[in-house]
């Protein structure tokens, strides 16, 4: 099996702070790869660099054979993504969000409509498809984002905490779909999560990152064996320690809070 994602000696510094510190790993095509780590470990930063929206300080990246810093368009054509933070246009309807995505990804009109309807039905939003996203609950927005990422069938699917805030039913439903997609269409899945039993169940391979460095790699079984743990959660804690991490709020987070307060008093 050849690697579809290759990361070699990747570094990202923000000023004096090293968010990603000389990491290397590769993901074979068609596998489900779990990228695990405590808050602030460097997971999202790594995904940002793989998905062309952040330039690395140094190191080598290959996504589907292309370099994200110089061959952005080929890389962007290769993947779909569910971001950790919200990424919907709340002033548009669910259907319009899907349609806009389909146009940006060059999905032909007929196929776009059909897949939009199918996927909205799949995530249980068919009867709410003409409602504005701002009227959706958190879980509904998350389901819509998952449906949107699946609208075009990408070779690689990046899922940054895709099941955050979803109930067990929906989590299972979505994961079984993604596993089937991986099996039947050979889609490579790169995901992060804080639910260790979820990672244990679906991931073929995992890598554990902490303080910007990869501390362990292998199948969930291998990690449990190596740390002599019964569950992946125990293995994870053995590998990364008990200390609770502090995450620096960035400007965007602070502003999002401001926006929430402002909109909360203004509109409703």
């Amino acid at each position: 099996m050849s690697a579809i994602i290759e990361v070699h000696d990747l570094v990202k510094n923000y000023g004096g702070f090293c968010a990603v510190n000389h990491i290397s790993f590769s993901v074979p095509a068609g596998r489900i790869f779990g990228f695990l780590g405590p808050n602030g470990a460097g997971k999202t930063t790594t995904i940002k660099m793989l998905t062309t929206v952040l330039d690395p300080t140094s190191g080598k990246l290959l996504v589907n054979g292309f370099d994200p810093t110089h061959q952005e368009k080929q890389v962007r054509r290769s993947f779909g993504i569910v971001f950790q933070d919200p990424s919907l246009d709340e002033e548009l309807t669910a259907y319009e969000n899907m349609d806009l995505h389909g146009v940006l990804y060059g999905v032909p009109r007929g196929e776009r409509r059909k897949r939009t309807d199918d996927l909205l039905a799949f995530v249980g939003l068919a009867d709410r498809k003409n409602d504005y996203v701002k009227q959706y609950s958190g879980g509904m927005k998350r389901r819509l984002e998952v449906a949107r990422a699946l609208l075009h069938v990408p070779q690689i699917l990046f899922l940054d905490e895709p099941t955050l805030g979803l109930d067990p039913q929906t989590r299972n439903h979505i994961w079984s779909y993604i596993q089937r997609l991986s099996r039947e269409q050979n889609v490579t899945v790169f995901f992060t999560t804080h639910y260790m039993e979820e990672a244990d169940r679906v991931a073929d391979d995992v890598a554990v990152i902490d303080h910007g460095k990869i501390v362990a790699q292998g199948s969930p079984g291998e990690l449990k064996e190596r740390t002599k743990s019964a569950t992946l959660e125990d293995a994870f804690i053995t590998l990364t320690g008990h200390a609770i991490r502090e995450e620096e709020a960035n400007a965007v987070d602070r502003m999002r809070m401001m926006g929430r307060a402002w909109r909360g008093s203004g509109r409703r």
Partner: protein
Amino acid sequence: MKAIYILCLRQLKRYFRSPARIIGSLGQPILFLVALGFGLKAMFARAGQGNYINFLSPGIVSMAILFNAVFSGIEIIWDRQFGFLKETLVAPVSRLEIVLGRMLGGAIVAFVQGLIVFAICFLAGFRIVRSPYLPLAIFFMFMISLLFAGIGTVFGSVLQDMQGFPLIINFIIMPIFFFSGAIFTANGLPKALQLLLRLNPLSYGVDGLRGACSNVFAFGLATDLGVSLVLTAALLAIGSYFFSKIQL
């Protein structure tokens, strides 16, 4: 091309679905029109300058366009905040297409807002002179819209959050409005302010629009046309450049 269209359409949908925004952004130009227009009308006439409402109205229309166009660019910050910007930045379309769609959408919104204010000026007594240049009024309005959508895009791309917003409004946008010839002419101004007026990109749009409506161009039609076209093209290019450098 399709990406430009769908992102432009998005801006228009967001605008037309928000009556509060449409009406809200009419407040400022109407206030200036009524307060200055009627407040200074008698003085302007006594000074032998003619009908102040006729002089002021193109300036007020330009003001409405200026603010709306800059704001459309600054919306990039909101999109960054609410996350939608990411969705467009990872799509397999060039950043040029994304930013052109955004700027075009923002410019059309500002232009429509300008048309509404134009109509309101008529209600306040604004009258245009029958002239062959009249169709150019539309042209100049659209040039101002595009030009300032480009400038707004530069701000929206560079600023990380809304903290810098008042800075831009009070130290850049308000001065651009006041020293553009929108509310008074360059005649009799101190030399430094005359120079400022000459260097202000809005001055040529205001003069072009006023000239198209009154047949009197302070800078000359050719200058207004040439400067507007060159500046608009330049600002669209600069806006695109800054947008293409955005990192998340």
